[in-house]
């Protein structure tokens, strides 16, 4: 009966109009809304919902749940959303270890996953999947950009990242482009709050620069402790380490830090000029990179949904892949492995009217893809 009803609605909807949105789309947004990573998840949710709200589309429903940054919880929520809520598309996971726990199962059950952030190397190469899209980047990208940037003026770098898939991707990406020597390569614990031991090693390393990939609360703790330590070696990192969600908490200790990003608040394009004020008006704070990525993920889904039925995954994913959106990042298209090809910039933390924010200082990569795309045959 249920299948008959579904088939009937499908036939009706197809017959009734080939125009937009006859088919309701149900999206499951799983993200981190509590704990030290909550800032990232809140921006993900708010960026996503802003695009949905702006579209005025009543056929799209989004159900949101908090994964508390715990893989086992994310899997439970995903199972529940797929089996009892019957969602069509999953999205929103911030962390690569959680994504790795959820995505293989979800795509095996025929659900589409559009990532708003996490992009582990494992899912970009051989194990890529036609139902898995990434609207953000591939994990290595921003780190590659910093490796390239460090070539200008840094000879010996101290590099560190948390010990989880994105952390390994991070340092791999950095080293892929950095031509100088690596003084030391340190993996910290995920969610670590005390960096005294690492700071002591930085002090003793004789490095002329520090590359730290520490998203969310980890970066806040590290930068605050680093500022107190008396170590003066300049710190750089991927955009996450100095993104808008952590800057107010780090405070002036972040001033002058260089970071890489595929978006910044001052990026000059029409979509961005509309997006930043709209986000500020809606939520009363500046958007972070996570908000932009989620905003684009929602735009991608809306764009595909206006042209194909979500029940026809082949047609729907073909539309998704066209990436027919106006991204605040400017140029945006999908690579063969359904990860973005986009420009990447280097930014500097500055004070703009009393508010800490990132300002673009140069474009480091143009139309940058990732190193795993050739390995993706699906």
């Amino acid at each position, binding site marked *: 009966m249920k299948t008959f009803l579904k088939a009937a609605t499908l036939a009706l909807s197809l017959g009734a109009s080939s125009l937009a949105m006859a088919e309701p789309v149900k999206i499951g947004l799983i993200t981190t809304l509590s704990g030290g990573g909550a800032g990232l998840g809140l921006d993900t949710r708010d960026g996503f919902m802003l695009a949905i709200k702006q579209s005025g589309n009543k056929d799209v429903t989004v159900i949101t749940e908090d994964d508390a940054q715990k893989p086992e919880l994310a899997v439970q929520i995903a199972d529940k959303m797929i089996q009892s809520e019957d969602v069509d598309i999953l999205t929103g996971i911030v962390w690569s270890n959680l994504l790795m726990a959820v995505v293989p199962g979800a795509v095996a059950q025929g659900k589409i996953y559009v990532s708003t952030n996490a992009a582990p190397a494992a899912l970009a190469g051989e194990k890529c999947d036609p139902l898995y899209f990434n609207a953000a980047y591939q994990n290595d990208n921003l780190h590659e950009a910093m490796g390239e940037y460090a070539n200008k003026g840094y000879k010996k770098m101290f590099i560190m990242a948390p010990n989880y898939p994105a952390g390994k991707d991070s340092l791999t990406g950095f080293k892929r482009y950095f031509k100088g020597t690596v003084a030391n390569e*340190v993996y910290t614990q995920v969610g670590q709050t005390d960096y005294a031991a690492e700071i002591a090693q930085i002090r003793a390393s004789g490095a002329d620069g520090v590359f730290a990939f520490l998203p969310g609360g980890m970066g806040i703790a590290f930068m605050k402790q680093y500022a107190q330590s008396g170590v003066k070696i300049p710190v750089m990192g991927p955009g996450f380490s100095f993104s808008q969600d952590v800057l107010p908490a780090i405070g002036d200790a972040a001033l002058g830090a260089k970071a890489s990003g595929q978006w910044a608040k001052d990026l000059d394009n029409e979509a961005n000029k509309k997006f930043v004020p709209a986000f500020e008006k809606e939520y009363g704070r500046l958007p972070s990179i996570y908000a932009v990525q989620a905003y684009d993920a929602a735009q991608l889904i809306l764009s595909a949904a206006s042209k194909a039925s979500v029940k026809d995954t082949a047609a729907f994913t073909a539309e998704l892949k066209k990436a027919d959106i106006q991204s605040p990042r400017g140029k945006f298209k999908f690579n063969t492995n359904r990860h973005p090809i986009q420009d990447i910039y280097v930014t500097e933390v500055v004070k703009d009217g009393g508010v800490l924010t990132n300002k673009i200082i140069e474009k480091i990569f143009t139309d940058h893809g990732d190193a795993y795309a050739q390995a993706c045959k699906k």
Partner: protein
Amino acid sequence: MTFALAIEQLLNGVQLGVMLFLMAAGLTLIFGVMGLINLAHGSLYMVGAFACATVAAFTGSFWLGLVASLAASAAAGALIEITVIRRLYARDHLDQVLATFALILIFSEGMRWLFGSFPLYLDIPPLLEGAVALPGGGQYPLYRLAIILAGALVALGLYGLISRTRLGMRIRAGESDREMIAALGVDIRTLYTLVFALGAALAGFAGGMVGALQSVQVGMGEPVLILAFVVIVIGGIGSIKGALIGALLVGVVDTMGRLLLPQVLSLMVPPAQAGLIGGALASMLIYILMAVILAVKPRGLFPAQA
């Protein structure tokens, strides 16, 4: 490895140890005197941190915040002792674990309800900002030195309290024979509430001090609680002296492990691999230490009661 690095890491280890001692002292005192396993001890640490951050943000003074963290966690401790914990002394440990685990959930959700999911921030007081020079050319953050000093003072104070005062005598008496001290006319219920509040205040004090180094957030107490349990198991459950030695041991072994293991491994495997494996091994190290100590001395280093 240079001399300066060794000194700095040793200090880091001691600082971590001192923080753990403040947590473990309360935990072990409560177990020693009341025979109670209190999983909610980490929540009291969180209460202290939140109280400190809130009062410091409101008044602009870190020191008032620290006083507030002591007061708030002692009050929260006394409150849960009177309402919940008191009913658990006669029950077995499983009931205690269940009830105090429920308290963790209640505290966490309560804090989330009151303060939201975003972490709060607490700045280091201007007096303790910056770094001081160390022998050997190194530098060390002044605030961390202050934590070590505060912890040492608390340890001394606790020693004085327990060995020199009437209250301490009653605590010791309570540890060795509960029925007898009640029979001698000591108000055991008030004593238990006092001890519980004291343990809670120590945890809250630790929370307030650590809050300035890290972010203050819901659930911050549980990782520390696990370490504190490792400390009291190593030190011998119920022994303050054991808690102190155990805490310093865990602090130094953990910090030195994180530094040395990757370096030792890098002699055998490529540096990237050494970093990964060394990092993973270092996080297991204190548990391995605990297992080894338990194999040799099943009751811990300083068992409280023979």
